[in-house]
C-alpha cells in the first residue's frame, strides 16, 4: 500500500501546477509579477504569507525537535509565531506605507544612497540562498525516506515545478498557490492528530506520563531491528546507551565500531574508561538475564567478555554489552550530584552501515529521561551549562530573525495599504498559531507511541512515520499520505517565496535599478522571468551540494544574519529619524557578519576542524549569537549615526511621515507602479 503516499504527493504536485497556471492567466503587468498587482485581499494574503513561511523546517522539523528535546524545543514554534507580533507592532505598517518594493528599495529610499541598495541586495541573496538550501535538502531527503526516490529526484521535482510557476506567473502566480498550500498544511498537521489522539489517547495524558515517571525513559515495546548508517552519515551513526540500566544489543549483520566514549561529557580529572564488552549470544538466556541485572561496577564471571574499543569488529550474532559505571574522580572517589553518585554509560559511533537489534523492554538509546524531556532547561538549552543564556538568545534569534526575513517582507508590499498590512499580519499570527499549536502534540505522541525513532535519529520523520503505526493499515497509509503531501506543500511554498524574492532582487534591484534604469516594463518582466529560471537552476544545484549539510545549521545562518542585519535596519529605519546611511550600513554589516562568523566558528569547533580551549559560556554565545549580535548591531547604528549626524537625509521628516502617516493624508508613494 506504499503507493498511497505517492498518490497524495502526486495530487499535491498536480494541484500546484494547475493552480499556478490558473492564477497566471491574471498576471500580465510587471506589477502583477512583482507585487501581485497589490490587489490581494487580507484573507488570501494572510494565507499566502503563512503558506510561504511554514517551511520544511516548520512542518517536519519543529515536531521532530519537540519530540527530541521536549519542553526546550517549544520555544521554536513560539519564537517563529512571535516574530510576527514584532513585525505587526513595529514594521508591517510603516514598511508598506513607505511604498518600497524590496528591502533594497527601502534601504536606498530611506537614506538616499544607491550604494546602500547594493549592500542590501547582497544580503537578500545571501539569506535567500542559505534558506533555499535546507528547503531543497528537505525535499530530497523526505522523498528519499518516504517514497524511496533518489536524493536528487525530490529536488528536481520541487525545483522544476516551482521555477515553472514563478517564471510563468511571478508573485501573482504563486499567491493563490501559497494560500492553498497553507490550508493544505494546516489540514495535514491537524486532521491526523485527531485520528491519532482518538486511537492512542489524550494529549495531556501523554505529557503526564513523563511527569509521573520522571526517572524513567522510553523503552522498546517489542524486539526491534533498526538500520543505522556508517560514519559517513555522522552523527546519525552514534548510539548513546541508556544510563538507567545496562544495555545489550545484537548485530545481525556485523559491524565495526569507529569511536567509543561516555554519554556524559567527562570533566578534567575524571576516569574516562569506557564500559563496553563484546559477547557471544549463544550463551544461555539465564546468564544473559543475570548480566542485564548486574549492579554497576561488578564484573562478569561466568560469561566471556571481551573489552570492546574503537576498531572492534562485531560478528553477526554477537552482542554488545554496555554496563553502567559510576563516575569517579582522579582519586577514584565517586562523583556526586545532589547527594547521589553520578552514573554514566558508553556511547559508540558505528564505522559501517549495519542493522542493530534491541530487545523488548530495553531502554531506547539516544534519548533523555522523562524529567529532562518534560521540564525546562533540558538537553537543548542546558548543553553548554548556561540554560538561561541559551534560552534568551534563542528567543531573540527567532523573534528578530523572523521579523527580518526578506522573502517574508516583500509579501507586505502586496497589501493595498498600511492598515491592510497590519490586518494581514494579525491574520498571519492567527493562522500560524492554529498550525503551530499542533506541533507539540506530534512531538508528545511520537515520544509516547513511536519512541524507536530516537534510536537512529529519525525524529524528523515523526509526522510521516507515526500514522503508519496504526493497526488499520489503510487508514495509516492514507494519513501518512496526507502528511507527506503537506511536507511537499511546505517545500514548494517556501521555495516559491524565496524564488520570487531572489528573482525580484535580480530583476528589480540589479537589472532595473543598477544596470538598466531606463528599461521598459516589458524588459523588466522578461528580466524577472530569466532571473527566475537562473535562480531556480542555481537553487537546485545548491540543493544537490547541500546533502551533507545540516538543515538546522543552514536555517540558523539565515536567521542569524536576518536578526542582526535587517531587523535592526527596519526597526531603527522606521522609528528613528536620526539614522544615517553610514550608521545603518555599519551596524548591518558588522552585526550580520559577526553573527554569521560566530556560528561558523562554533560549527568548526564542534566538528573538530578548529581546536581551541573555549569556555562553555563562550560556546553558548557562539552557537546562539543573537543575544549580543542584535544589541551590537543596534548599538553600532546609533553610535555611527550620531557621529555622522550631518548625513541625516535633508527630507528625513518627510520620509518619516511617509512611513507613518495614514494614506488618507496623501503622503505615500509607491515604488512599483
Amino acid at each position, binding site marked *: 500500500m506504499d503507493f498511497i503516499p505517492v498518490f497524495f504527493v502526486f495530487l499535491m504536485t498536480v494541484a500546484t501546477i494547475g493552480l499556478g497556471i490558473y492564477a497566471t492567466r491574471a498576471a500580465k503587468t510587471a506589477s502583477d509579477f512583482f507585487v501581485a498587482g497589490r490587489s490581494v485581499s487580507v484573507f488570501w494574503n494572510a494565507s499566502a504569507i503563512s503558506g510561504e513561511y511554514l517551511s520544511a523546517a516548520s512542518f517536519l522539523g519543529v515536531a521532530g525537535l519537540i519530540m527530541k528535546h521536549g*519542553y526546550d524545543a*517549544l*520555544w521554536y514554534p*513560539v519564537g517563529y*509565531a*512571535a516574530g510576527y*507580533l*514584532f513585525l*505587526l*507592532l*513595529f514594521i508591517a*505598517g510603516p514598511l508598506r506605507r513607505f511604498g518600497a518594493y524590496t528591502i533594497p528599495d527601502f534601504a536606498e*529610499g530611506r537614506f*538616499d544612497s544607491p550604494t546602500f541598495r547594493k549592500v542590501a541586495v547582497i544580503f537578500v541573496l545571501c539569506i535567500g540562498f542559505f534558506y533555499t538550501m535546507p528547503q531543497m535538502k528537505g525535499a530530497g531527503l523526505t522523498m528519499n525516506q518516504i517514497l524511496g526516490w533518489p536524493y536528487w529526484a525530490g529536488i528536481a521535482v520541487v525545483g522544476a515545478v516551482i521555477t515553472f510557476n514563478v517564471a510563468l506567473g511571478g508573485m501573482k502566480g504563486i499567491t493563490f498557490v501559497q494560500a492553498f498550500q497553507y490550508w493544505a498544511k494546516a489540514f495535514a498537521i491537524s486532521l491526523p492528530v485527531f485520528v491519532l489522539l482518538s486511537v492512542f489517547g*489524550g*494529549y*495531556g495524558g*501523554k*505529557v*503526564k506520563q513523563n*511527569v509521573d515517571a520522571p526517572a524513567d525513559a522510553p523503552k522498546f515495546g517489542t524486539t526491534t531491528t533498526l538500520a543505522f548508517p556508517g560514519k559517513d552519515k555522522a552523527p546519525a551513526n552514534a548510539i548513546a546507551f541508556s544510563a538507567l540500566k545496562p544495555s545489550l544489543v545484537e548485530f545481525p549483520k556485523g559491524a565495526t565500531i569507529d569511536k567509543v566514549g561516555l554519554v556524559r561529557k567527562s570533566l578534567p580529572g575524571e576516569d574516562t574508561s569506557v564500559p563496553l564488552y563484546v559477547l557471544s549470544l549463544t550463551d544461555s538466556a539465564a546468564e544473559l538475564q543475570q548480566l542485564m541485572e548486574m549492579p554497576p561496577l561488578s564484573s562478569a564471571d561466568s560469561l566471556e567478555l571481551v573489552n570492546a574499543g574503537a576498531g572492534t569488529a562485531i560478528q553477526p550474532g554477537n552482542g554488545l554489552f554496555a554496563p553502567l559505571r559510576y563516575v569517579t574522580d582522579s582519586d577514584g572517589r565517586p562523583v556526586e550530584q545532589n547527594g547521589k553518585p553520578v552514573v554514566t554509560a558508553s556511547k559508540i559511533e558505528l564505522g559501517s552501515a549495519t542493522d542493530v537489534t534491541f530487545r523488548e523492554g530495553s531502554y531506547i538509546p539516544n534519548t533523555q529521561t522523562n524529567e529532562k524531556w*518534560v*521540564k*525546562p*532547561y533540558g538537553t537543548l538549552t542546558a548543553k553548554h551549562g548556561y*540554560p*538561561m543564556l541559551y*534560552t*534568551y538568545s534563542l528567543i531573540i534569534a527567532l523573534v528578530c530573525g523572523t521579523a527580518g526575513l526578506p522573502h517574508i517582507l516583500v509579501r507586505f508590499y502586496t497589501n493595498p495599504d*498600511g*492598515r491592510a498590512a*497590519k*490586518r494581514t*499580519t*494579525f491574520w498571519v*499570527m492567527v493562522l500560524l*498559531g492554529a498550525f*503551530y499549536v499542533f506541533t*507539540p502534540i506530534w512531538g508528545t505522541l511520537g515520544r509516547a507511541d513511536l519512541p524507536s525513532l530516537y534510536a537512529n535519529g529519525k525524529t524528523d520523520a515523526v509526522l510521516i512515520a507515526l500514522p503508519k503505526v496504526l493497526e488499520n493499515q489503510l487508514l495509516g497509509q492514507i494519513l501518512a499520505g496526507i502528511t507527506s503531501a503537506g511536507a511537499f506543500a511546505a517545500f514548494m511554498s517556501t521555495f516559491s517565496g524565496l524564488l520570487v524574492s531572489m528573482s525580484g532582487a535580480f530583476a528589480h534591484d540589479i537589472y532595473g*535599478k543598477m544596470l538598466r534604469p*531606463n528599461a*521598459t*516594463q516589458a524588459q523588466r518582466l522578461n528580466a524577472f522571468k530569466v532571473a527566475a529560471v537562473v535562480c531556480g537552476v542555481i537553487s537546485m544545484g545548491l540543493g544537490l551540494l547541500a546533502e551533507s549539510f545540516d538543515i538546522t545549521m543552514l536555517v540558523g545562518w539565515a536567521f542569524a544574519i536576518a536578526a542582526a542585519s535587517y531587523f535592526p535596519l527596519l526597526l531603527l529605519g522606521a*522609528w528613528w*529619524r536620526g539614522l544615517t546611511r553610514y550608521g545603518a550600513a555599519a551596524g548591518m554589516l558588522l552585526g550580520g557578519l559577526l553573527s554569521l562568523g560566530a556560528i561558523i566558528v562554533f560549527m568548526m569547533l564542534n566538528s573538530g576542524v578548529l581546536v581551541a580551549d573555549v569556555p562553555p559560556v563562550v560556546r553558548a554565545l557562539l552557537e546562539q549569537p543573537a543575544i549580543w549580535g542584535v544589541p551590537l548591531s543596534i548599538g553600532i547604528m546609533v553610535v555611527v549615526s550620531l557621529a555622522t549626524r550631518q548625513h541625516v537625509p535633508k527630507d528625513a*521628516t*518627510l520620509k*518619516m*511621515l511617509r512611513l*507613518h*502617516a*495614514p494614506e*488618507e*493624508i*496623501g*503622503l505615500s*508613494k*509607491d*515604488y512599483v*507602479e
Partner: protein
Amino acid sequence: MADMPPPPQTTGQAGHHETVAEHLSHEQQEKLLHSVMNRQAALSVRVSLVFLAIIFGLPLVNWLLPDVANALAPGGFTWTWLLLAILFYPITTVLSAYFIRASDRIETELAQEGKAMVQAAQQESGRGA
C-alpha cells in the same frame, strides 16, 4: 527619490502626493510627524512590553520557581507546558487584536487631523499665490 526612473504608468495620484507634501511647511511636517509617531510608538511599545514580560518572564519563572512551573495543571499538562505550548497562541492573538483595534482608531483620528492640516496649508498657499 531622485534616482527613481519616471514610472511609465503614473496613476496621477503619485503626482498628487508630491504636491500635498509641498503644501506643508517644515514646521508643520515636524508637528504632524510628532503626533503621528508618538501615538503609534506609545501603543506599540505598550503592547510589546506586555508581550516581552510574558516571553522573557516565563524562563525566569521556570528558573526561580520550578515547583510552580512544573506543578500539574488541568488536563495532565504542567503549568509551564500549558502556557508555552497551548495558551501562548491565544494570548498573542488577543494582544495583537487589541493592537489592531487601537491602532486603527489612532489612524482614523490622525487621518482627520492630517487632512485638516493639509487643507489649511493648501488654502493658505492658495491665498499666498
